[in-house]
Each structure stands twice: as structure tokens, then as C-alpha cells.
């Protein structure tokens, strides 16, 4: 049985007393080495969940446990060591004047000795494929490269979980692929849980489990395939359904019996030509 890493117990949150609840009685669990996607329309509370996990915010009701420790004012510095976060805007989280200074920032905050920092910078920049950019200044990097540096900065302090809050939303398709590939490699090499927050259904395909948020409530929790099968309902709660899923649906309406819900073009293709060969 895998260890529980993150646990939300009946968590409710609002930004101010007179404001409406942003999260309403949410409970879920995330395990070690798991890859989770959180999706939901804009304003459904995804970023709020992320900020609650590493104690940038505290819930008014309920309890949050990280590796068994409750998130409180006293524990946040330990918890932030375990929970790494990458935000949406590549520019607004780049603190250092050069790539290596930025990767060092988190380690400097934790008082890691200089010699060790140098070794870990090398290691984590190599992990994200940015080892040739040690002294490059941020304004000479693409958005995708900056996000990879941000990931390296998080990896350098060896967290237990990496949260990406729409980290690819501001990138072009090339930058997005860069990040997705980087993450796959990183997760393979380290034992690390991954929480990908997105409103792009394409990005949920690689996760083990998907949590769907709707107006501050957990609307569903299931595998990507199960989620994709509910495309009409997903559309109703304001999510973009990938073209493959829609196409598969239309084909089924036309009388083609697909055996499983295809997640991407390859799977649909597979379905189609095997279908054809059996008839």
C-alpha cells in the first residue's frame, strides 16, 4: 500500500468573511508517486487548492495533512520543503538574475551549503535539459525554458510533490511539449508525486487519476479514460473536450462500435483499423 502524501479532510475555504465559499467541503487523498490532474473551469478553485497545500493559505474549516503533518503556521516551512510549486507566468516566478541564481534561490532560503548547491544546480539543470544555460539571463530565455528552470529550482530542494498550476497555459505548443516531456522524465527518475492543474483536457491523459472541480466542489474523481467518456457533462461544466473524444462520439452515433474511449489520435486510429479488419 502506498503512503498517503496529501489529505484534504472536509476542507472549506473563502478569501474573506463576506465572500462566498471558494471551496466547499472538499475531501480527497493523493498518494506517493502518483500523478494527479486537477481540472475545472476558471474560478473553480484549483489554484486555491494548490495554495492550501503548501500553506500560502489556510482553510477556515477542515484539515489538510501533508505526509501526516497538519498544515499550520508552525509547519509551513517544513511543508514547503516537501511541496514544490510552479506557477503560470514564467516571468513572475524567476527571482535570480541568471539561471543558476534562480535555481539556487530555494536552496539559499534553506541554508544549504554552497558546495552542495553547486552540485545540485548541475544535477537539476541536467534533469530539465538546461545544463548549457547556467549563466543565461532570464530575458534571453523562451517561456518554456523559463518554466524548465522553475522546475529545476523546485527539484533542487528534492520535494515529495510537484504542483504545476497551469504552468503551460502561457506557453506555445512547442513550450508545452517541452514541459510535458521534461515532467515525464523527471517523474521517472525521482520518486515524486505530480499534481498538474490545467483546464486543458489534453494534459490529463498522462495522469493516473483526475480530480474534476466545479464551483468549489469536487465534481468527479476518476481515471482519464472514465473522465473522457463523460464528455457531454464535462462540456456543461465549461471544459474543453479534445477533438478525438468528440470524433469518437460522432463515430459511435454513426454506428461504429468502439471498444474503449480513445485518449488520443493513435488510440482512435488503432480502434478504427482493427474495427475495419473485423468486419
Amino acid at each position, binding site marked *: 500500500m502506498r503512503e498517503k502524501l496529501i489529505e484534504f479532510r472536509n476542507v472549506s475555504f473563502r478569501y474573506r468573511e463576506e465572500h462566498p465559499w471558494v471551496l466547499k467541503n472538499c475531501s480527497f487523498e493523493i498518494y506517493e508517486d502518483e500523478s494527479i490532474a486537477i481540472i475545472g473551469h476558471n474560478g473553480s478553485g484549483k489554484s486555491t487548492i494548490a495554495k492550501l497545500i503548501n500553506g500560502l493559505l489556510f482553510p477556515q474549516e477542515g484539515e489538510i495533512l501533508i505526509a501526516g503533518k497538519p498544515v499550520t503556521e508552525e509547519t509551513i516551512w517544513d511543508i*514547503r520543503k516537501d511541496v514544490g510549486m510552479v506557477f503560470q507566468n514564467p516571468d513572475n516566478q524567476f527571482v535570480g538574475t541568471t539561471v543558476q541564481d534562480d535555481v539556487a534561490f530555494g536552496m539559499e532560503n534553506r541554508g*544549504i551549503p554552497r558546495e552542495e548547491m553547486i552540485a545540485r544546480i548541475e544535477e537539476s539543470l541536467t534533469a530539465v535539459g538546461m545544463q548549457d544555460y547556467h549563466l543565461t539571463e532570464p*530575458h534571453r530565455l523562451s517561456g518554456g525554458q523559463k518554466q524548465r528552470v522553475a522546475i529545476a529550482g523546485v527539484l533542487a530542494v528534492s520535494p515529495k510533490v510537484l504542483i504545476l498550476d497551469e504552468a503551460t497555459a502561457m506557453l506555445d505548443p512547442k513550450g508545452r511539449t517541452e514541459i510535458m516531456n521534461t515532467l515525464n522524465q523527471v517523474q521517472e527518475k525521482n520518486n515524486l508525486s505530480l499534481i498538474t492543474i490545467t483546464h486543458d483536457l489534453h494534459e490529463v491523459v498522462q495522469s493516473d487519476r483526475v480530480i474534476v472541480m466545479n464551483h468549489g466542489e469536487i465534481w468527479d474523481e476518476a481515471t482519464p479514460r472514465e473522465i473522457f467518456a463523460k464528455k457531454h457533462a464535462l462540456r456543461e461544466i465549461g471544459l474543453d473536450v479534445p477533438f478525438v473524444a468528440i470524433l469518437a462520439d460522432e463515430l459511435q452515433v454513426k454506428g461504429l462500435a468502439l471498444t474503449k474511449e480513445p485518449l488520443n489520435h493513435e488510440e482512435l486510429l488503432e480502434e478504427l483499423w482493427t474495427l475495419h479488419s473485423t468486419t
Partner: protein
Amino acid sequence: MNNTLIIGQYVPGNSLVHKLDPRTKITLIFFFVFIVFLANNVVSYSILALFALASMVTSRVPIRFIMKGLTPVWFLIVFTFILHIIVTKEGTVWLEIYSFQIYSGGVFQGIAISLRFFLLILITSLLTLTTTPIEITDAIEDMLHPLKKVKFPVHELALMMSISLRFIPTLMQETEKISKAQASRGVDFRTGSIKDRAKAVVPLLIPLFVSAFKRAEELAMAMEARGYKGGEGRTKLRELKINARDIAVYLLFIAVIAGLLLTRGY
């Protein structure tokens, strides 16, 4: 412009002057400002000039960059010279134009003071030409360290400076983007009265400010998420180190001071 953008006047290089510890450079300049006033005859001025010239040559910074740094102060140097010629009435009369006499003392004084001025500017601009702003920041943080005892926010100040340095190019790129966007909507920054042009800048400044505040807020959050909680217990990646070359330069500088003291007239 994005690829040539260099903050400040820094001219990248690998010379001895570039490689000196920034604290060494700042300390030497600080003392140079004082010893300039020791010189009072041809020999002592020559020693100073030789030192400045030697630093300049060693730095291998192209003359045109140095001259560019001097542009705004040429006027002052020339002005000082002329002022002395007019005001000082010592020594023998060298030249008489109508009823106005130019004295030898005035010429000597004028040359001496202008030269002092020139050397000061030359040496100080050599600092910014051979040291990156972030190195200067590190040096200042380190040298102000004792002030921490009286609760002076040294670390915070240095962090503020380094974050500003980090965001200057970003904000410049953004300014360019916004001004292009506004220009494409017909905002005209280049023609019209001063008042019209000032007005045209408003739609440039407002989005810039709004985004800068948003950046600041997000950056603060990102820093906190990465475990930033002030300067207490922090280690640093960038390290300042006094090397043998720093010691050598200090010794040379002491020799210059000794030379000045020996050769100056009392």
C-alpha cells in the same frame, strides 16, 4: 535590441580589473577620491595620472566606452578650467586681452583642478564599466554587513536591488510591446506639443504599472512558496573572494599613496 541589452555600462571582459573582487574596487575608489587631493605638483599629478591610465589600459575597455561615460562631465571639466582662469589672480600675467589678464596661477590651478576631476570620473566610471550591477550589489551587501547590528535592512536592500536588476529588461521588453500595441491603435508618441506627447504616454504607463504590480504580487507568492522567509539563516550561491591579485593591487595602491606623499610639495 533584446539581444544587445546590457544594464548599466558594463563592458564584458576578462581583464585583471574585471576579475578583481568588487569590494576591492569599491574600496580603492573610495580612497582614490581622497588621495586625489594629495597631489599638488607635476610629479604627484603624474603619479596619479599614471595610475589611472594604467588601470584603464589593464581593463582593456575600449576608449570609446570610456569616453561615452565622460560625455556628460566634459562640460563641467571645461567649465572648471575657465572659471579658474577668470577668477584666480596669482603669479605673473601671461596674457592680456584688453583689460582682462590671464595669470599663470590661474592656468596652473585650472589645469590641476580639471585634471583632478577628470581622473576621479575616469576611475569611478571604470568601476561600472568592469563590474556587473549584481556584483556591485553583492559587494555593497557585504560591506554594509556591520550595519545589521543597528537593524539596518542590508539583506532586504540587496535583494530589492537584485530583483530590480532582474526585472529591468523584462519591463523594458514589455514597454516596447505596449508602445507598439498603442502605436498600432493610433497613439502618436513622436509628434505634437509636449503636452500632447505627455498625454500619449499615459496609455503606455497605466498598463505598465498595472502589470508591474501584478508581477510583484505573483513574485512575492512564488518566493514564499520557495521557502523565502527573510535573510536569517540564508546561504548564498554567489560568493565574493579576495584573491592574491586583490592583495597585489592593494599593495600597488599603497605604493602609489607613498609615492604621492613623498613627491608632493609641502
